[in-house]
């Protein structure tokens, strides 16, 4: 039986440029390209219409950010909320992270969903060490971020005492939307903007890791902090808000009510 095949040439004369929205035409042309049935001019036109150039690391980070594999790892009640982010109602598959991996070797993202007891901390650290680079950690909820309500003998007061945490999601427990929002922040961080914005919100410039190497406050450290603060202030004030969602969240109530100059002074007094 002969398969009847529609020819793209009949549907698409070359002298009439197609509407770019015509999906069927583009599909047929891609099919013909794969079959090797396109002429040189057609290939030329196809490439000029459908490709763009970029940097390799950008593509790499784009792929990493949109195919994060979280570890199947629950610590406490936050894990219930974490489970629901893969449900159809919240659906982290929209962001490409629905593949929860049961082995740290296959996971990119460790979500600390609950309090970390001091007996569990070495285990968590070991799991983190077993994950392959690049890897990220989300501290979900008040307990893993700061100890939360468990200010007692059994619980580590903040998971960043024993492993580097990339993003903290506040809440007790956080809503699944908050986890997704934190995950979006993490994706943005992975894609090349490593500043999630909290230093600006907390007026905490000068606490970066590179700034800590100064240790005691020498004159150079003072100058370095001042320079960092100035640069960050300028960046925060000059760069337009990125995306409506992020902008709204960063303008928390009571934020940005004082003038930028006053904010800079406040930071200098506290951190320098």
């Amino acid at each position, binding site marked *: 039986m002969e398969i009847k095949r529609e020819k793209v040439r009949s549907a698409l004369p070359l002298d009439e440029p197609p509407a770019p929205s015509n999906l069927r035409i583009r599909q047929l042309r891609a099919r013909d390209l794969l079959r090797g049935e396109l002429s040189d001019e057609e290939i030329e036109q196809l490439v000029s219409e459908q490709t763009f150039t970029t940097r390799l690391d950008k593509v790499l980070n784009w792929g990493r950010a949109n195919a994060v594999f979280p570890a199947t790892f629950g610590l406490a009640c936050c894990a219930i909320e974490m489970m629901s982010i893969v449900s159809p109602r919240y659906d982290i598959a929209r962001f490409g992270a629905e593949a929860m991996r049961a082995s740290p070797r296959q996971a990119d993202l460790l979500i600390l969903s609950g309090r970390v007891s*001091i*007996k569990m901390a070495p285990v968590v650290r070991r799991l983190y060490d077993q994950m392959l680079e690049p890897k990220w950690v989300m501290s979900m909820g008040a307990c893993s971020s*700061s*100890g939360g309500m468990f*200010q*007692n*003998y*059994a619980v580590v*007061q*903040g998971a960043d*005492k024993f492993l580097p945490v990339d993003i903290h999601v506040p809440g007790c427990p956080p809503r699944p939307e908050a986890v997704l929002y934190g995950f979006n922040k993490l994706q943005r961080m992975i894609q090349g903007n490593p500043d999630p914005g*909290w*230093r600006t919100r*907390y007026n*905490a410039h000068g*606490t970066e890791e590179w700034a*800590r190497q100064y*240790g005691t406050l020498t004159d150079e450290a003072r100058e370095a902090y001042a320079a960092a603060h100035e640069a960050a202030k300028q960046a925060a004030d000059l760069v337009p808000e990125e995306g409506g969602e992020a902008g709204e969240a960063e303008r928390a109530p009571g934020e940005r009510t004082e003038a930028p100059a006053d904010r800079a002074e406040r930071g200098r007094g*506290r*951190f320098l």
Partner: protein
Amino acid sequence: MPDAAGLELIAAEINERHPGAIIGTYYEHDQACLIADPEQIREILAWLRDTPGQKYTFLASVHGADYLPAVPRFGVHYELLNRDRVERIRVRAAVHDPAAEGGPYPLGEEPLPEVPSVTDEWPTANHQEREVYDMFGIVFRGHPDLRRILMPEDYIGWPQRRDFPIGGEPVIFTNNEREVPGWTQ
């Protein structure tokens, strides 16, 4: 549940057989409790288990308590149950703290109070005595495997004692990390 008079009868009978074993009794909220000398706790529990008419055969729970600043400071509670009559009785071993005299001792080197273990007669007490040891630092003499059970094995201190510092660790946020020195270095 023995009533208050029955509790006194039990205490008198035990003291008759083991002089000085029962220090006192109390009865409140419909709960009967014998306050016991810890050195004779095995004999008391065996008497309550084996004596016809008593037959508190089931050791439901072993747990500790810290009554600081009371003397004696610690209590080890043995909850007994007679499953035929559904009667309960509690035996509280009143344990002196040897660290109360002398000292102050360095952290983790204070002398620990001792109580005879009942694990060989009541196997259910095994893990529960380990927990009491873990939380209160009460050593059960004769226990087959007295290790910490809940806290990490290298933990220093007895966290459920009343003089254990609660919330001794300041919570660091970005707004006070400069004021709390030395936690990142």
